[in-house]
């Protein structure tokens, strides 16, 4: 579970073990999803930091830096 806060204008996203700090003009949010099928429901949560058209996606041990708008 990521928490987003601000410190001196900078946006800070952390789950306690990983922390991303973003310049004030950037946007930080959590991209969440339920994935349904007959067997199970899976919850997905990514931390996303966007700045000047570049997106950083953080999920589990994976970090993706891309200009694409990735979806779970």
């Amino acid at each position, binding site marked *: 579970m990521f928490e987003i806060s601000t410190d001196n204008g900078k946006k800070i996203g952390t789950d306690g073990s990983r922390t991303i700090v973003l310049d004030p003009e950037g946007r930080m949010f959590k991209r969440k999803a*339920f994935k349904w099928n007959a067997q199970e429901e899976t919850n997905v949560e990514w931390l996303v930091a966007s700045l000047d058209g570049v997106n950083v996606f953080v999920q589990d041990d994976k970090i993706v830096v891309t200009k694409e708008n990735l979806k779970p």
Partner: protein
Amino acid sequence: MAASVQIREKNGAGETATDKTSGTVRFKNADNATVDTSNPMVIPVSGTDYSFEKWLRFNVASGTYTEITNIEMYSDGGNGLGTGVVAYAKTVAAYATPAEATSTTGYTSAFSYTSGSPLVVGAGPYTSTGDKGNYVVMILTVADTATAGVTSSETITWAWDEI
């Protein structure tokens, strides 16, 4: 603190809500949220059997958050339900008592909605609890070409951005 989100099925004239976040939505020939084998879809001798509409709604049940945006629904893009079985979806702004569908007019195959081209449920921003975005209305059709038995499962994704 985060928003506690549910996907709710709405039934009856009174719009009775059932949390389906971790549950099953059973397409059938009746308007209820019960997951059972009553009122099953049948393979017609000819033509198509249409399910009752499933009215689904994104709901922020509790929790605190700054804003929710970009509520979307999509599939993996491939219909794995088998020959003659198709799920359809559309968005609707106002509730109406779920009825048995008689055609697919106004609907789009749910499998044409993908992460790159999703069904937009609500752009937001939303900042409070309660139902958010449009209703998603889904139906299932079973054609006379379908094979009897249990179909393969399919995955539907509900996604949103939250601060």
